[in-house]
């Protein structure tokens, strides 16, 4: 297979906005993500969820277009889009035919710099955000994920990105308008574009649309401790929801590839340990998996299983047994399967402009530079079995956070 390195370029605008681009000659599409450092960890202390409300309110009219005109303009260009917050970023993502990008970028510039934030839409946006928080009570698996992060991570990293209901009901339009000015600034923002594009054209376009955007970085909320430990939340659900979290090296550390390979041995494909031991051999549950995630300063492995109350304790015991057992090492075969699994995902994701735009943003945040598909492949090929096993021995799963939701509490086998 011909695997020439994809073409990439990083430009920095004077106002602090970073432009990262990848040219993909084999597609007709282009995808862009504009991300500001304005996710949930930048919400005010008593306004958790305000970023989430803003991510809706900014779409209710921008520049000289009201809500309907803005929506019509994006629809007429065939833009598939979403806007939302995670822990770190508030981001607007869009996919389209590449030739439409020059018309789309000025609309995004309006949204980020000249949102109208009309009074009459404020209550609706806030009500929707409150409704989303209430709806989580009907989705126990999603609720588990939110509560587990809150339990495991230090504040403000563990904050629920949807927000805190009491904070949102106290929020005013005037407060949120001030927050928009504070948060929507170019310093630290990243504009990531992948697809059939010309770098020079994109650079000029970004300069024209965002060059006059000014403002300093918003301040992140003050850090606090992580609760950690075990927590049970009582709810009359059919399945008990089990979540486990433990620390791993952050992605910016070269060793993180060792953690990723190990997680793939636990939960890569259907032949991986958790699926094979807990579901296939014991028939204890339908869903059981674990994955690696990283913040800039802290990596983590999050595990999940859902099972009926009668099987929940056995599932938890088996899950913890598998997590602890991996310190004894993995086999050469397991390593090879994990390697090929990650490598082929790299190629598969490399075909999608929206996946690549997301990956470029991810790399800029964690490493300060984008990685090519070739570099990602080489990174997976480099470690030896000894490297992975030494890592596992040095980072045994001893302390973990446990969160369960269901009709009865489980016993932690510590």
């Amino acid at each position, binding site marked *: 297979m011909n695997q020439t390195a994809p073409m990439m370029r990083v430009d920095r605008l004077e106002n602090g906005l970073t432009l990262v681009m990848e040219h993909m000659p084999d597609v007709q599409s282009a995808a862009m993500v504009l991300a500001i450092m304005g996710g949930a960890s930048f919400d005010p202390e008593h306004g958790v969820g305000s970023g989430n409300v803003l991510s809706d309110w900014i779409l209710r009219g921008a520049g000289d277009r009201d809500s309907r005109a803005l929506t019509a303009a994006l629809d007429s260009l065939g833009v598939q889009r979403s806007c939302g917050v995670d822990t770190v970023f508030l981001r607007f993502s869009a996919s389209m035919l590449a030739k439409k990008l020059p018309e789309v970028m000025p609309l995004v510039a309006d949204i980020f710099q000249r949102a109208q934030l009309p009074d009459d839409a404020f209550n609706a946006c806030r009500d*929707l955000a409150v409704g989303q928080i209430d709806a989580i009570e009907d989705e126990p698996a999603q609720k588990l994920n939110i509560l587990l992060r809150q339990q495991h991570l230090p504040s403000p990293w563990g904050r629920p990105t949807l927000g805190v209901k009491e904070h949102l009901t106290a929020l005013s339009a005037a407060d949120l308008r001030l927050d928009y000015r504070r948060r929507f600034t170019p310093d630290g923002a990243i504009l990531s574009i992948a697809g059939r594009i010309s770098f020079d054209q994109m650079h000029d376009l970004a300069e024209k649309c965002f060059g006059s955007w000014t403002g300093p970085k918003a301040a992140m909320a003050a850090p606090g401790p992580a609760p950690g430990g075990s927590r049970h939340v009582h709810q009359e659900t059919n399945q008990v929801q089990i979540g486990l979290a433990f620390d791993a090296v952050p992605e910016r550390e070269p060793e993180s590839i060792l953690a990723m390979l190990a997680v793939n041995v636990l939960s890569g494909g259907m032949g991986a340990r958790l699926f094979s031991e807990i579901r296939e051999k014991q028939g*204890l549950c339908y869903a059981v998996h674990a994955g690696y995630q990283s913040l800039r300063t802290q990596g983590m492995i999050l595990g999940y299983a859902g099972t009926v109350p009668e099987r929940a304790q056995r599932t938890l015991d088996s899950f913890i047994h598998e997590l602890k057992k991996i310190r004894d090492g993995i086999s050469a075969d397991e390593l090879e399967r994990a390697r090929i699994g990650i490598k082929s995902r790299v190629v*598969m994701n490399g075909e999608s402009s929206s996946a690549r735009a997301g990956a470029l943003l991810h790399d800029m945040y964690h490493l300060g530079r984008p990685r090519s598909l070739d570099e990602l492949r080489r990174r997976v090929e480099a470690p030896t079995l000894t490297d992975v096993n030494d890592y596992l021995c040095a980072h045994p799963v001893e302390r973990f956070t446990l969160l369960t939701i269901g009709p009865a509490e489980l016993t932690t086998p510590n």
Partner: protein
Amino acid sequence: MSTFKHAKLPNNLDVIAEVMPTTKTAAIGFMVKTGARDEVPDVSGVSHFLEHMMFKGTARRTAADINREFDSLGARNNAFTSNEVTCYWAQILPEYLAPALDILADMMRPALRVEDFDMEKNVILEEISLYLDKPGHILYERIMEDHFGSHPLANSILGSKESITALTQQQMRDYFDRHYGPGNMVLAAAGQIDFDELVELAHRACGQWPSLAVQRRYPAVAPAARRHHIRDEKLKRHYLGTLCPGPSSQDMDRFSAAILADVVGDHDGSRLFWSLIEPGLAEEADFSTFMHDGLGSFFGYASCDPAKAALVEETMIKELSHVRDDGVTEDEIARSKTKIATSTVLSGELPLGRMRNLCSQWIYNREFRTLEEDLAELEKVSTQSIKLLLSKYPLSPLTITTLGPGDN
């Protein structure tokens, strides 16, 4: 430029492919024309349970072998069961076509061992429990029952705890023997594919399978307007579903239907968006087409604060009446065409999406359609064609099913 290929093995197995020379991966899959609608009540859920059992081993492989071998190829693989079809697929790097097809084809001749059957039954019961915690799924199953009545499209895909517990391995084997064979399934591939190699591999792996003649039942549906509320006081939100007749997967009106559904209920900028989401009445509102084999429906959905349930339902019904009486505007059609055309092109860049599309077209229509043909058909949609569509399918009779903590 993509090219279409078709070959038929002597045993009637159709092998089809869309060769996409600029892609770097390939997707292959078997789609079997069998699903929940082909089940009788005492084997309810067998199609889906069988889908799980296909991964549990063959004469040559154990379940662990299948999973390990797919993992050794770096494959992304899975399967799904619907009312209509069961599909087994793998996305791979092109150099692994031969070993991937060897595993996938072998899986189509499963051992169905009793001990595996008994163990996997637990997993199916877990999956049923999982969905009992998902109100959107409960609403879907109930509205299909309410709308389709005694028609087999009302059948539950997962089955019930009772039907799964009572199911025997012999019943599953009988079902397999009657539905899984050339003549009732297709082998499809998309992406970076050497078609001659694919056909040669298929000959070797599938050439011995006996051909099957399967006759699906197409009973008439007699939908009537009705409303049904299911009370569950544990829920925090109210869930609304509406279902009414629409065009089938074979019907050329499906292109007009896709535009109509987009105008009424796409996530951004649709009529339901402006009347329900934008004013903050509902968190979710959606209107879409369910296209089945031989018949179809339009499905409306919203979730909201229980206190706003009546207003949300009234608004949904008002929007449906409005579009039925007054049709859609030129401007709305133009916007929807652009949106759908863009999403068609974007999904056409990925082999997995094309493979599934190819399979469905073949199962329902025994034809290939290129993206360009679909786009040309979409371009023909007009206010007139939508008017005609609405005269055939006037968004009534309407089945309304709701689920929530309140009394109605």
